[in-house]
């Protein structure tokens, strides 16, 4: 028997329209401009895998975490000058047991994508998770994260989340 859905009726939000960014080759692309890492850049880094993580988290929901508003552009705080990124995510339900796994995936994705000078804080949005403090503490303890990433089962799970899907 298939396990009961944690959240059978998720609220689905429309994807936000955003202007296309200039890329090398575009008329307005300035290759000498400083390579500033901003909110949108982080969001782009994360959304590639957020589309995929739904397969792990909510197999029966045909929505990405973006559409579920687990993570939104506004929940990403970036200060390129101070090399600081803070991502606040909203688990779909208060007791979402996948919160630590999603958080770990977010952290690993940023670790692999951002220059090493960046300091990253991953937090559950205030009031959205029953054990918010415990989840936040665990996600931001780098020794625990390092140990988790030496666990082959967890690494497989994280890698699966982070593999781009080509469907």
């Amino acid at each position, binding site marked *: 028997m298939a396990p009961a859905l944690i959240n059978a009726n998720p609220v689905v939000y429309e994807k936000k329209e955003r202007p296309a960014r200039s890329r090398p080759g575009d008329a307005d692309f300035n290759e000498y401009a400083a390579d500033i890492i901003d909110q949108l850049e982080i969001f782009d880094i994360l959304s590639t895998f957020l589309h995929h993580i739904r397969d792990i988290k909510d197999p029966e929901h045909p929505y990405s975490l973006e559409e579920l508003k687990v993570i939104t552009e506004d929940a990403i705080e970036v200060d390129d000058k101070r090399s600081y990124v803070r991502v606040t995510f909203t688990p779909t339900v208060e007791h979402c047991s996948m919160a630590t796994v999603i958080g770990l995936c977010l952290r690993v994705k940023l670790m692999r994508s951002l220059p*090493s*000078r960046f*300091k990253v804080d991953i937090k559950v949005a205030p009031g959205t998770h029953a054990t918010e403090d415990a989840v936040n*503490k665990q996600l931001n*303890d*780098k*020794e*625990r994260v*390092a*140990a988790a990433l*030496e666990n082959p089962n967890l690494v497989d799970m994280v890698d699966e989340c982070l593999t781009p899907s080509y469907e």
Partner: protein
Amino acid sequence: MNLLQEEGLQLREVQRLEGHTDRVWGLAWNPATGTAAIPAMLASCGGDKTVRIWQQRSPSSTSFDCKAVLEETHTRTVRSCAWEPSGKKLATASFDATTAILEQNGNDFDCVSTLEGHENEVKSVSWNASGSLLATCSRDKCVWIWEVLPGDEYDCVSVLQGHTQDVKMVQWHPTVDVLFSCSYDNTIKVWAEDGDSDDWRCVQTLGESNNGHTSTVWALAFNKTGDKMATCSDDLTIKIWGVDIASLQSGDDNASWRHLCTLSGYHDRTIFSVDWSREGIIATGAADDAICLFIESEDHSVDGPSYKLLCKKEKAHDMDINSVRWSPMENRVLASASDDGTIKIWKLDSTH
């Protein structure tokens, strides 16, 4: 020599030691080296599962070379290492749930013993002052005390349960056989041998209600005489604790540690490491990539001692600093280890 009267002290980078291929977690100076006749020796360990031994080129040189890379002892991250007081053996604690004892044999180091028992990651290891006891701690929330027996045998004499979360570090007191542990549960626990039952028990817990830390306590260190202890935390503070050393040495049960002062506002991310030089300078290393040095201030208030910042080295490394360790000699040499994979040797000297 009075540090407070010296103007413009700064940490000067003497050398950058490269070789680790992942973050460097731990550092330990060999206490039997660094004299006029014996070149200083430093051990480091990290996420690349190796232990590296660095040695000063000559007793007068400021350059260190990598003398040995120990690659086969552990199968996962080597989180910390500690030299036996005689400097002949090195204990290494690993995420592979074991603690290894390595012995120097000419230019090589051989693994002479492997201590098993913890359920998962071992995070820290410490020898007592005489080298007769070893303590280890783990994510399994336990602290183990091992007795060192002849023939490289290690016998577990006690499994201490009391922490409610993983134990980050264990450290023996520098003169008395009393053990300290600090944890993800925000507390520091003091363990002593019970004279009647021969077993070890928790004699004090320093937590939030004793003016303690409000988040993970990552490390602790003692001053030279052992009457003061510094602890550092994810709550971005350093706390100084004091004890009546005479009653501690007499085994008095009332020898309790009390909070003396809290240093806050110096680091803006988790403080991972603290060390106290023989001369009395406290060094801290943190996730803000900075090293801070503190010294006891001369203007004592009625509330007890206060400490002032001697200097702060911003961007001491490119990434988090996991360990700071003063050379055991009184030569104002400090080593630091970082997530950037490097170790740096620093000298505290005058800007003039």
